[in-house]
């Protein structure tokens, strides 16, 4: 069975380094200040799982959560 992933950016931790947007542009959006939030409801489309983990492991503020559902 394939696991489904969901991502969430903690807005209190995000400082706008924008590493996630650079590494996984499909999964994150930036607001007018450059701070990140997850695209849509945060569900990771099949095939983008690696990018979700990569974004998490490069966030200097440890603001990204990857939830296995």
């Amino acid at each position, binding site marked *: 069975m394939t696991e489904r992933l969901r991502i969430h950016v903690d807005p209190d931790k995000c*400082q*706008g*380094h*924008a*590493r996630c*947007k*650079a590494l996984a542009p499909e999964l994150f959006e*930036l607001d*007018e*200040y*450059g701070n990140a939030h997850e695209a849509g409801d945060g569900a990771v489309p099949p095939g983008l799982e690696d990018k979700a983990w*990569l974004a998490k*492991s*490069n*966030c*200097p*503020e*440890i603001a990204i959560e990857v939830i296995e559902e």
Partner: protein
Amino acid sequence: MSDISQPTAHPPVTDWVNDFDHTDPQWTEDPFPIWDEMRAVSPVVHTDRFLGCYMPTTYEAVREIAHDTEHFSSRRIIVRNVRPEIARNAAPPITSDPPEHKPAKQLLLPPFTPDAMKKLEPRMRAICNELIDGFIADGKVDAAARYSKYIPVQAIAHMLGIPESDSDLFINWIHMILELGIKDESKLLQAVQEMSAYFTAHIEARKDTPTDDLISYLMNARNKDGQPLEDSHVLGSLRLLLIAGIDTTWSAIGSSLWHLARTPVDRERLIAEPELMPTAVEELLRAYSPVTMAREVVKETTISGCPVKTGNMVLLSFPAANRDPKMFPDADKVVIDRRENRHAAFGLGIHRCVGSNLARMEMQVALEEWLKRIPDFRLDPAGTVTWSQGTVRGPRQLPFLLGKAM
């Protein structure tokens, strides 16, 4: 009012753990073994120099301090021999603490988003190529003086709407503030006065004739009460953008070229796999982070088990944090395809560099355009590489021979 201090002699350091000095020639030349030595002894070390100063040596201790605005203030952000009086609106938001920090920071963020930087990218590529045109036929170049230095100056001048031809003026002020000013306060004050007079004239000119640039953007900005910013706030932010935007990225581009000149295998790989460049830029930022910030201890606390007392400064070395082997495997090696890289080159917490997206774009463009035109280059054995002293580290003389070695 403090007296203008005279340049103070700094005796050579013999005990790095208990008497460190980031202006010592040994630190300037090769700080990495020094940081390893300090880190092996304690996560936080102290010196009596600079009227008392701590330095966190691990990533964890740096992270703790950067996130703790209760005990550590940003009202002073450079470790100097003296503690000049704290000026209101010195350079917001970098010199601001909560709650003033957030509104000041939010004002500056929109012009520096990744999307805003994409619009600037074509001009940056043109600037890089104009610079390369100026020396490529010579077969040799000082890449710090002729290339890496001018890229950020011209970028920030372009954004601020001030003449790119004033570049040398800006470079001189920055040298006086960040290098000479550490030990000679008169140089610092002179540069700040000249810079303020320069920007005041630009602000006045825009009161009659508004322009489409960052200076007018700041003049039109409104604070949270809907009022225009005070002239002193606009001036402080302009000083910050100029100071923070130039020799930082100059250093990062210079260090990256220095690495590539000495590492043909990385150069060849980046030419063969250009899509690797963004990852490589992050690794070069980690390994050769240019910027060390500072904080002032305003309330006693404990960091990584070490007591920290008020009245001391803190040398907040993001470069040392980025070399912590507990955080980064093979921390002393440049691994240009490093997959996991939570480096702190642009700081951590609320003071994350406003210009990080600009700096990344400039680095990427500067290295790409250089490698397209100059795939082969090496250090000129007849020249000497010199490094800047103090708060921002990068090559200031970078003599290269261009083309394949005979």
